[in-house]
């Protein structure tokens, strides 16, 4: 069922992408269009080349089927170049793609969140000698973010050091509706960042099922909880 939906989306998307490109390019980059005239590449050709490059294992091949937001984002090398309609479209699509834990928004277990933040292994599959297992969970957050003090982290994403302090969450106010609203905001960004930042580099962890809603809740708790080492 899910697969059929994917394929359906794909078909719609492919039509969408080609018309969008034809419409968009003459207006935006007339010179480049002229230079490209001699070599024209269809989306189907690109797809065939992509398919040729992967092991034909049905367990994994679904990974290269794009959804509509991915297809829109692929058209714009830089997010700044995205036209407002495209931005709006992705926001619209992704706002529908957020689910919450069964119990709603609550303070989770920051210790569990910490484990998921630190693990680099989630979502990779076992192949050629590396010891990853399909059951490994994690968000590999340090690759892109600075989080706890003194732990090496990347700078692709913003620094998250003292994140809860920045949101002014304290032991006293953490159960007020305002604080829970802040927790919800962070939950939504981790679950599906594209609902607020379309086509951003951050994976839509919850939407893709890389992390469960409860796991996302634990990570949001780790970032905001006054007792978490992030806020020490």
């Amino acid at each position: 069922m899910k697969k059929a939906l994917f394929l359906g989306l794909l078909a719609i998307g492919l039509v969408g992408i080609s018309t969008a490109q034809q419409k968009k390019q003459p207006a935006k980059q007339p010179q480049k269009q002229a230079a490209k005239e001699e070599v024209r590449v269809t989306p189907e050709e690109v797809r065939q080349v992509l398919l040729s490059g992967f092991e034909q294992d049905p367990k994994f091949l679904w990974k290269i089927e794009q959804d509509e937001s991915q297809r829109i984002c692929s058209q714009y090398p830089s997010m700044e170049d995205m036209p407002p309609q495209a931005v709006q479209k992705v926001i619209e699509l992704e706002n529908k793609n957020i689910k919450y834990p069964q119990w709603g928004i609550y303070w989770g277990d920051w210790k569990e969140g910490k484990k998921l933040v630190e693990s680099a292994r989630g979502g990779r599959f076992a192949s050629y000698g590396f010891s990853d297992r399909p059951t490994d969970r994690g968000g590999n957050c340090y690759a892109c973010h600075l989080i706890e003090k003194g732990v090496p982290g990347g700078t692709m994403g913003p620094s998250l050091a003292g994140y809860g302090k920045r949101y002014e969450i304290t032991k006293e106010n953490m159960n007020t509706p305002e604080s829970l609203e802040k927790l919800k905001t962070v939950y939504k960004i981790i679950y599906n960042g594209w609902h607020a930042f379309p086509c951003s580099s951050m994976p839509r962890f919850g939407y893709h099922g890389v992390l469960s809603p409860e796991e996302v809740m634990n990570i949001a708790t780790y970032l905001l909880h006054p007792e978490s080492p992030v806020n020490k």
Partner: protein
Amino acid sequence: MNRRKFLLLSAVAVAGLTFAPAIKPAFAASKLEEEIKKRLGVELSAIKETAEIKLTAPTIAESGANVPITVEANIPADKVERLWIFVDKNPIPWVTDVKFTPQNGQVFLSTRIKMGETSNVRAILQLKDGTFVMATKEVKVTAGGCG
């Protein structure tokens, strides 16, 4: 608060201030001290730092598996017995030792060493007259890549 109490209080406070920083590094270096005592027969505290040894190492290493170090000394090779390299916080702090002769013409070593974590690297020269001099550099070991 009377005057005597105040004086006492401040004296203890000052003692705390001056000793606390000294205690910590000495404690952390004990394994290294043992190793140096065992291999060189001297106390680490007896070895003086000198500007005559130039120890080049990165300030930040992207990988602890391969930290490039270069040692160059202005002390003539015929006065030198041996060059020792130690890494304070490695499980085995001793890394290597090189015997030099006048045929070397100079005291020089360039190699790559392993470092388990952020730590000092020490280059200690054992001189023919039985004394030791050293140069120290801290290398911060971080992690690179996607993980």
